[in-house]
């Protein structure tokens, strides 16, 4: 993200709109256009997504996708640095950008009648970026301070980096999005331009426009503003190094005196949502809810927080939105006086019992109800919907997959969930991390 907004945008739970409120088109130059209609307020969100994220970076230049995101605000052949943001602000709008493993996206939120101007500005910087060496030096200072703020000053973030690096043996998902510090310090103009020239092209982008707009008009404006940009003929097939079979449990102890609350976390390599094959990911979505999604009724909460006083906090995490293999995660924060070993044993015992006894039918039905309701609530946040489509389309899914997802979720059975659990919760594909202030607490 280019800068932290005062208010973070909360992403809703998984769901989709009714099919007829979403329209898709592909321009002749390959740009995909997705329009989501919501006429409640005279607002539009304009988002341009590139199918290029940190996991697409060449070796030894980690952080270049995110660095380029920052540099995209530094001006073009005809625009001064910062002028883009000034123009958006002069419309009362806001703008920002974000980089992830699989995508980089730029967005503006404006009054709906300002859409054409936003498209012109965004199309301009797709092809006409102009960066000076001075920009490189100054902005590299900014991203290093961003890394300081997000990672170096946070023992939890540092521990997460070590966990992911251990989880992925071969895939770029093991490298932090913001980059390793020693490589960030060396990033230069040519790294940025090489990435830009190859990946910032209409045939590698998805335009998502959401809000008080008419699809025909949006497509006409997109043709006018983006349609003249030529496609990139040398865009490579998007094939990244994949994980080999993982065959050894990994363990790490992360020590940092700034940790005042020791905890343990476990991650397992897990399948993601694939186009036309989202069933296993749907089952894993339920599994995360069942194991750790409720502070009151999930397996870990009941066993470690209610039936025993082992933990002050438990959770499970899974997101199927990823181009390649994702992770399934568990976290336990023990009560004072409970060792990490005791907490881990209790966690493993609770999971073993879950695998033995299966799922309470009422709880499963309540989860189905909640997932259905989340479709209704999600419609309240049009920017969240725009993000959902943009992320899906840059992570190997189609609009049809996004729209099928609620039904896929509703059709998951207890057998599906138990089968997915047995497959994914495998020691050989796991990393277990203990995060402590000092090894002495382990004595």
């Amino acid at each position, binding site marked *: 993200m*280019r*800068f*932290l907004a*005062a208010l973070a945008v909360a992403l809703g739970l998984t769901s989709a709109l009714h099919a007829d409120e979403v329209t898709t088109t592909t321009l002749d130059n390959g740009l995909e256009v997705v329009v989501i209609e919501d006429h*409640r*307020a*005279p607002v539009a969100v304009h988002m341009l997504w590139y199918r290029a994220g940190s996991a697409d970076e060449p070796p030894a230049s980690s952080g270049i996708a995110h660095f380029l995101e920052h540099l995209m*605000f530094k001006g073009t*052949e*005809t625009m*001064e640095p*910062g002028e883009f943001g*000034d*123009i958006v*602000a*002069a*419309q*009362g*709008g*806001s703008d920002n950008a974000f980089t992830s493993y699989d995508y980089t996206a730029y967005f503006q*939120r*404006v*009054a709906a*009648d*300002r859409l054409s*101007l936003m498209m012109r*500005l965004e199309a*301009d910087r797709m092809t006409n970026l102009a960066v000076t060496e001075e920009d490189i*030096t*100054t902005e*590299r*200072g*900014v991203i*290093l*301070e961003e890394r*300081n*703020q997000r990672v*170096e*000053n946070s023992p939890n973030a540092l521990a997460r980096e070590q966990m992911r690096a251990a989880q992925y043996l071969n895939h770029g998902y093991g490298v932090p999005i913001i980059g390793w510090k020693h490589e960030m310090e060396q990033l230069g103009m040519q790294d940025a331009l090489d990435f830009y020239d190859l990946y910032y092209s209409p045939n590698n982008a998805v335009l998502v426009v959401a809000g008080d707009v008419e699809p025909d008009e949006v497509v006409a404006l997109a043709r006018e503003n983006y349609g003249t940009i030529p496609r990139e003929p040398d865009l490579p097939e998007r094939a990244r190094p994949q994980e080999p079979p993982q065959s050894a449990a990994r363990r790490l102890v992360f020590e940092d005196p*700034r940790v*005042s609350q020791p905890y343990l976390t476990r991650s397992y390599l897990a399948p993601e949502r694939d186009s036309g094959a989202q069933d296993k990911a749907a089952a894993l979505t339920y599994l995360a809810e069942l194991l750790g999604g409720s*502070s*009151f*009724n999930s397996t870990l909460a009941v066993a470690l*927080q209610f039936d025993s*006083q082992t933990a*002050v*906090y438990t959770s499970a995490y899974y997101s199927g939105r990823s181009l390649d293999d994702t992770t399934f995660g568990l976290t336990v*924060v023990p009560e*004072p006086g409970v060792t990490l070993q005791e907490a881990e044993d209790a966690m493993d015992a609770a999971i073993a019992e879950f695998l033995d006894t299966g799922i309470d039918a009422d709880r499963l039905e*309540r*989860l189905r*109800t*909640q997932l*259905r309701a*989340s479709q*209704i*609530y999600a*419609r*309240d946040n049009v920017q969240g919907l725009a993000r959902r489509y943009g992320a899906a389309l840059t992570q190997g899914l189609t609009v049809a997959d996004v729209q099928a997802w609620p039904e896929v979720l509703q059709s998951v059975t207890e057998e599906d969930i138990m089968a997915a659990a047995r497959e994914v919760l495998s020691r050989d594909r796991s990393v277990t991390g203990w995060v402590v202030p000092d090894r002495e607490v382990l004595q």
Partner: protein
Amino acid sequence: MKRLALILALLLAPLTARAEIDIEQVTSPGGIDAWLVAEPAIPFVALEIIIDGGATLDQPGKRGATNLMMGLLEEGAGDMDARQFQTAREGLAASFGFDTRDDSVVITARFLTENRDAAVDLLRKALTEPRFDQDALDRVRGQVLSGIRSNATDPNSIAGRTFDREAFGDHPYGSPVSGTAESVTGLTRDDIVTAHRNALVRSRVHVGAAGDITPSALGPLLDDLLGNLPAEGPARPGPAGFALDGGTTVVDFETPQSVALFGHRGLARDDEDFFAAYILNEILGGRGVQSRLMEEVREKRGLTYGVSTYLVPKDHAALYLGNVASANDRIAQAIAVIRDEWARMADEGVTAEELAEAKTYLTGAYPLRFDGNAAIAGILAGMQATDLPPDYVENRNGYIEAVTLEEINRVAAELLAPEALHFVVVGQPEGVE
């Protein structure tokens, strides 16, 4: 392109200067006032209830009682223990939030039209018949203490606590809403019952509602929900003295990036100069990368990822605060630039061009806030809590437009006090005294 874009921007102005929402004022049969924006497009309702008082009502020695009490409202009510209550809530797919702030407690709720009555009944039990079972109390206390432990080694949290303590001393503002490890450990069930009796009172309620509900249905719903709360609460504390003078406090903490929180006195929300100060802040440090401080500290010098300033008009004190973070060997430079810009703004004020740009942004951005039921319910409750009338929504951009260059620059000279600016720096800053 540069000129063309600007010309186009001018041609398009003025922007829709009014929010297109219709606020209905509702008074329930039992006399509870609420504001409603009815929007039937999506079958759910968002509610936000702000109750004045909040953590400032903590009794002496019981810091954190209100916060712990609010955390316990969803942990068992009526004939249901914590897990039974949550099972019922999950079955309805409703969500409730219970938050504690300095001057208020805030209850948010979101529930489907199809089971509205059952959801409201459940929330009513949480608000008016909480059980405060001892096992729940001990469990949630453990969670609060865990948070307090984590905050003890978080640089931002250390900076905030240090600033508040030095500024406000023994006033409730001088310590964290969540309390200290010692005070929270000492809280009893009686303390929680007292906090509940004091914090949730009908005469201090402000209700915002948005979504799929009519005014005639909202009134009885509010009587069901809030009618059983006691009418009046205890006296609120008086004004909080602000004891910090200019200077720097360094808190030694081993971490690579220093975190600085800075500020001095601010302006009350009902001060007649508030709008001028609001625009002034936008220009100095409020409006993201367009602000002067971001331009000088980040864009020109690359010294930080972010620097921002904000007016903090609390009910019993008013502050003008900001924050910045830079590597230990660069924070001194960032602080020097901020001090210089503070002084330059106090001396020279803003330019006519800066004022015009800020007005265009603020008036254009205002209508964009009203998107979504949850956002609207929050704005409606917040307006009532700050004593604004419903037609404020229509007039607010007029107040912004009315601020003149003379006025804002007079306020800049009065409000900004470079010699009073106090920095709390957490880290191992080099060259900071």
